């Protein structure tokens, strides 16, 4: 099934849900005003479902828009969104009964930074056709293979199908097999200690502390983030590199066992910082130490909310 059919199906389901008053709103995407950007939006009237779209520019995680909402909601969910919806339900940020989940088996989102950096001139238009991405700008037109320009997290995604849904907008896909999810983490782990330090100094050097990474993340719903606490103030407000580093590592730690590697943080970063480098380490450790992958089941407690008497402790004296 191709993107236009996805969109048509999403519209059809959404219109039906709104007409039958099964939900008060549908949360999805509408076409963006610039290439490779779609805007999260809500639709309340059946006649407005024409706004909804689905394509390879729906990288924002819509679970972010569910936090503490009270109404009945239809929500479009790709694999990672659905896992964050599961996490939201487990963490009591939304109730399952409130949701009608329109599952979208996801073929991956494209990496706008990567595509932008491939061209000297500005990109004016992007369209997609099956597995091809056609990029147009002043004086050039180029066809790219979608697989080569996927967001990095999509490239290594092993849960493209929604894990929880009420209706599907397309047929389920075969999941990717034999994926090495942690090649980049292992590379850093293998570095000398000083090289690690310098590596993170380097990738964080451009951080402007805008908190787009935090705020794009469906996990970051604390009423007061540790970085905003003033008594005591754990992290300074300036661009001091020690503060910036502390912010990123603590934030990543706060997502331990909850992160689904949806890539929203990295996609949101205006400076193109590889923010997933932080969260992925914890994701890897949760898998290796506790056999845990976030957001796959409503019935299991996340790893930091439970324990086993025989958990590894060889590091403790």
């Amino acid at each position: 099934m191709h993107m236009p059919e996805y969109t048509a199906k999403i519209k059809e389901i959404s219109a039906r849900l709104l007409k039958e008053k099964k939900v008060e709103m549908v949360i999805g995407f509408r076409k963006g005003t610039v290439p490779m950007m779609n805007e999260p939006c809500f639709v309340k009237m059946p006649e407005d479902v024409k706004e909804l779209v689905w394509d390879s520019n729906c990288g924002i995680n819509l679970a972010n828009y569910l936090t503490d909402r009270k109404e009945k909601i239809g929500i479009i969910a790709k694999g990672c969104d659905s896992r964050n919806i599961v996490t939201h339900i487990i963490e009591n940020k939304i109730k399952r009964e409130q949701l009608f989940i329109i599952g979208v088996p996801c073929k991956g989102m494209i990496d706008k930074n990567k595509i932008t950096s491939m061209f000297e001139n500005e990109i004016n238009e992007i369209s997609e056709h099956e597995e091809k991405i056609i990029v147009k700008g002043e004086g050039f037109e180029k066809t790219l293979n979608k697989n080569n320009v996927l967001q990095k997290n999509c490239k290594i995604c092993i849960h493209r199908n929604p894990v929880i849904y009420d209706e599907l907008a397309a047929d389920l896909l075969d999941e990717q097999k034999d994926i090495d999810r942690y090649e980049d983490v292992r590379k850093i782990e293998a570095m000398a200690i000083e090289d690690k330090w310098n590596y993170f100094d380097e990738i964080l050097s451009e951080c402007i502390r805008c908190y787009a990474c935090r705020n794009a993340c469906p996990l970051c719903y604390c009423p007061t983030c540790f970085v905003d606490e003033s008594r005591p103030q754990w992290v300074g407000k300036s661009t001091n590199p020690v503060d910036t580093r502390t912010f990123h590592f603590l934030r990543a730690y706060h997502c331990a066992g909850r992160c689904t590697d949806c890539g929203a943080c990295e996609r949101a970063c205006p400076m193109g910082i590889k923010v997933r480098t932080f969260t992925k380490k914890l994701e890897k450790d949760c898998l290796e130490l506790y056999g845990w992958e976030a957001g796959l089941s409503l019935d299991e407690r996340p790893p930091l909310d439970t324990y086993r008497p025989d958990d590894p402790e060889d590091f403790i004296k």
Partner: protein
Amino acid sequence: MRLINIDKKSWTGGLENLYGNYRLFGPVKNNKHHVFKELSKGELPDLNYLNTLLSPKSIVFSQSETMFEYSLDESKEQHHILKEINKDYSPQALIGIRPCDAASFQLVKRNFDTPEYKDPYWLRAYESTTFVGLACSNPCSTCFCTSTGCGPFHEDGLDLLLVDEGENFIAKILTPGGENFIKSAGWETETDPVAAEKIIKNMKIKAEKKIASFVSTDQLKNRSAIDLYAAPFWEEIAFACINCGTCTYACPTCWCFDIQDEVSKNLGIRMRNWDSCMFPLFTLHGTGYNPRNTKMQRVRQRFMHKLKYYVDKYDDGIQCVGCGRCIRLCPVNIDIRRVCDMMNKYEG
């Protein structure tokens, strides 16, 4: 006003001459994008760029800036008393700044240089800066500078405008500061002003024709602030917003800041950091009450400030130069052009 011809062959030499007299800043491409940074000796600005990712406002208004320092050591004289610190306000030049960004400094100056109070940090940095503009022949699709009283060849706020003619620059000297800069560089090939102006004019028309996006602002002044504030569209506009500070930090005309103390051991500083009206903390009272507690209120504040409060306060257009950065960088595609049109059209 003079017009000078700068052969690109003499560009590097001129910059070398300038190096001792100015701290030079210019656009440089790191591995990802163009940023304004201080040029080291021999480093050339890369003038083949659309626009820098972030605005150059930080060169005059640093994201984090120390204001005072003090000692908390009671055995020291003058302990707990804030002291001004010495800062480098020697001449600096921003080379290759786009006209929209240059105009933003004029606009922001209204805030930092008022009849009652002068912000010494901003003003001293501003006054030490020579703005060497680079006319924009290839505006981005998100640029709407011509709608904001600005434009790709706009001269306000510049000391000098460079127009790239391929083999050479035409340099239009606009102020005594620009004159000093040219002298210091040693560029002195006069050019026929009439012919040069004609070339500039033609290029300007061509560049302005390339501007593809526009906003209407003509009705904003006539609209009632109270009506706009109560308009029904804010909920819809704000829905996607994630309350990050990207738009405000990228914006050349956003000036809000926070003041903070930091202490290490017995030495303390008072500093200021950029702040953002998108953050809930921006307006949170000590009591816990927050007059802008919801995302909708904060998004509304940002647009109302730029497109209505500022218009009403200064009666000189909107607080926006149309650089399009907030549109390009917003993680969720909230587009000021769309909001501006909605506000301009809204009749209450």
